[in-house]
């Protein structure tokens, strides 16, 4: 994933790359990396957990403004279910 993000970033489009495997991120860092301690295949969280998925996505987007050096890493504090996620925004009633 790091390589694809590098190519896109090199073309001038800002990228942020999520990861659940620290060693892979360290071996081939993307331009901006966001580590979350979730399972493979559930990077944004549990199925249908809108608040959790939004929280991870918003944190990733926030990293666009906070990572200032190529290959920089932000580690998210989320602990899967043992977490109070903020109420989701933009959800249709």
């Amino acid at each position: 994933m790091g390589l694809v993000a590098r190519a896109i970033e090199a073309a001038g489009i800002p990228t942020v790359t999520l990861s659940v495997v620290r060693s892979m991120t360290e071996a081939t860092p993307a331009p901006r990396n966001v580590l979350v301690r979730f399972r493979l295949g559930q990077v944004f969280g549990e199925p249908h957990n809108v608040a959790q998925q939004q929280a991870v996505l918003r944190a990733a987007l926030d990293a666009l403004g906070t990572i200032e050096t190529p290959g920089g890493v932000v580690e998210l504090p989320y602990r899967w279910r043992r977490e109070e996620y903020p109420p989701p925004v933009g959800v249709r009633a």
Partner: protein
Amino acid sequence: MSRWRNRLLSKVYTRFPALSERYGRRSGSFDDIPLPSLASPVRSLPEASVAVVTAGGVHLAEQAPFDMNDPEGDGSFRSVPRQTRQADLRITHDYYDHTAADEDVNCVLPLDRLEELSRAGVIGRVAPRHVGMMGHLTGAQLGRLVDRSTVEITRLLEEDGVDVVVAVPG
């Protein structure tokens, strides 16, 4: 015939994240594309068009599935239109346990979450096309990704006027 073995291994890796860490250390680094300097955002996030590139093996049901028989993987990609319904998507990827993403594709391709952020004004809009691909590539298929797919993916994003890309592993 090794597909069942890969699927079984993917479930083990998902259960025991420490094994994935070992795999990551063993797989070494890929420097075919150097780490570039950071691109400057053209638009602020509340005005930006956001696309997702996922290595979760997501594609449309009508598109050819990723090739699971080549031991080097499949370095091609599929474009997924913005408003595709979950029922019209498939995940073909034996190297991670996608049970959760089969139930809710937002686990690896969060298009519904992006729509909500767009509605709430956190982002400007959801890009018209997104990208599904695979990780776990080696040899000629890694070359195919680096030499061809990344060029074509970048062109697709540029054609759509994408301002920000969220890249997601499987």
